[in-house]
């Protein structure tokens, strides 16, 4: 099991790959290697490089349905100016921050809490884990449709509880533009918290058992040990869970379409939905690509930061 996906980068790099050591004549096997990885070359260069550049260039044009590259189609940064004065986009950006922060904080907190409780030598651990994780097997469309039904004002929880005699009970977040986003957060957490729990539980169990003994000898209460000693020690698990969350948040699309379709009004619009709408129904590719570029920006900044940190760390190691 441990050998599954665990090879660290340095492990792979330290061992010189057989086909790449030093200068050597071009061999048939190298050609075969290139032939065998043609799809990868096409994808890496064609999709994750050329397509991104293509989208970026389109964001400076006034393309409507089809890409337009004529001299008079280039409008400079007009699309960006228009984007940032479009109410729908501003709402989307606000929403993704709000939704993202709330989802991630709630998800990480709940995930760690569940993991800590799961770590108490409980009976039926496998059963509980299956229950917490099964929603993740289902698509976000299904998650969205189920929660929309549960939160339905006329037939869902609200109607049921009112039927029990609590006439004033109100719990139908999706029909109110101020609260709809909370409904999305609940559904998103239901779907994804099990994964966070599984990662955190693995992190907890990776912490050296000696730490627990030492904490016990020092008389530190269990909850304090979990919060102040163990938690800071599992940075890897926290980072993994966090990155998964971030990627999920930026991509949130299915959930919106299934649950609120961006409504009521435009109150749950998100950037991912905005882009798709503009390259399909609204046929305004230039604006859509400007929005897509804005979506890519935080990813590039974060990855750049990580590469920089890694590079710094490597240099320190070399100098030492």
């Amino acid at each position: 099991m441990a050998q599954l996906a665990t090879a660290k980068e340095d492990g792979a790099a330290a061992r010189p790959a057989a086909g790449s050591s030093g200068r050597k004549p071009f061999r048939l096997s190298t050609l075969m290697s290139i032939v065998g990885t043609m799809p990868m070359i096409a994808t890496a260069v064609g999709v994750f490089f050329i397509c991104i550049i293509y989208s970026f260039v389109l964001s400076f044009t006034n393309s409507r349905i089809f890409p337009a590259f004529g001299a008079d189609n280039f409008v400079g940064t007009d699309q960006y100016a228009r984007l940032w004065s479009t109410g729908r986009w501003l709402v989307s950006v606000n929403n993704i921050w709000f939704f993202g922060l709330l989802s991630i904080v709630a998800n990480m907190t709940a995930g760690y809490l569940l993991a800590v409780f799961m770590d108490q030598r409980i009976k039926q651990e496998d059963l509980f884990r299956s229950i917490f994780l099964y929603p993740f097997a289902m698509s976000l469309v299904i998650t969205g449709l189920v929660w929309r039904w549960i939160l339905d004002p006329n037939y869902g929880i609200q109607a049921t509880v009112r039927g029990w005699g609590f006439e004033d009970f109100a719990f139908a977040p999706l029909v109110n533009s101020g609260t709809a986003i909370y409904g999305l957060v609940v559904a998103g957490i239901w779907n994804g918290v099990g994964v966070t729990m599984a990662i955190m539980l693995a992190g907890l169990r990776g912490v050296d058992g000696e730490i627990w003994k030492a904490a016990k000898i020092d008389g530190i209460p269990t909850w304090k040990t979990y919060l102040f000693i163990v938690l800071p020690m599992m940075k890897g698990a926290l980072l993994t869970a966090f990155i998964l969350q971030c990627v999920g948040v930026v991509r949130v699309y299915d959930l919106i379409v299934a649950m609120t379709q961006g409504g009521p009004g435009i109150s749950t619009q998100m950037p991912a939905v905005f882009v798709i709408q503009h390259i399909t129904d609204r046929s305004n590719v230039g604006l859509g690509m400007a929005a897509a570029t804005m979506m890519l920006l935080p990813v590039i900044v974060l990855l750049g930061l990580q590469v920089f940190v890694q590079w710094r760390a490597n240099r320190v190691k070399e100098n030492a």
Partner: protein
Amino acid sequence: MMTTEALAPSAGTSRIEDGPRGAKPRTLTLSRVGVYVFLILAALFFLMPLWVMVVTSLKSMPEIQLRHIFQWPQQITFEPWLKAWDTACTGRDCNGLKPGFLNSVKITLVGTTVSIIIAALNGYALSFWKYKGANILFGLLVFGAFVPYQVVIYPLIIGLREIGLFGTFPGIIIIHTIFGMPILTLLFRNFFAALPPELFKAARVDGAGFWQIFFQIMVPMAVPITIVAVILQVTGIWNDFLFGTVFAGRENMPMTVQLNNIVQTTTGVREYNVHMAATILTAAVPLAVYFISGKWFVRGIAAGAVKG
């Protein structure tokens, strides 16, 4: 490379099986009771939607009008299930989920196979036959795992349209292959790179070439990682909605898209029981994969959840 460690949490995940390390339980104390109460309440929260789905799908519409969303049906009916499968309408078509199911089966089978073969080759070449620039390609690919789909969807639409594959079966397979490639390649590369190098060297000494070593030595060794990849791809492709909407076209519309269309159709009476039956039917395949594969599934998502 950056991200690799973050993407490969299974080193930690494997420890799940080592057993708990927390404070040792004594006899049944108040705090033990508290632990179980918390876990059971949490479990109820997670099970509630499943319960509501099943219960709603077995009720008749008049019973749903009684507004007891949690109650077991007084009279069980399988009518909604038949209707969801066979005759539910999306717009003017009234063929139920059947066609979507068949499309999803086709897309999932072919998409999984193609994407895994390609990714295995990539991982193999990246581990043993690195050519000049291979690292840069791999870096681009890993970067691709983090790129929001929306950034590349439009150029892909244009590109596929140019070669006449937009809205066709090969088109949607290509799309799933592309977007599955970063994480699958990473999986296979890490797996092959962790194999003992003597294995490869011995085969080289014997004069085996690129393809021979791949098919005769590496493929048989790669069974466990292939299982993880299959779980990842089957659930990922089956659950896909965005690519199905954009690229599959009407002829190949996958089940998730059809489900959404059935539920969102605004004409006629909204049949909530049919909607929930359709939802369960669509969830059935990934759920089956989940319960059959058990711990493998956890490994798969831990390794690949970054795919989103």
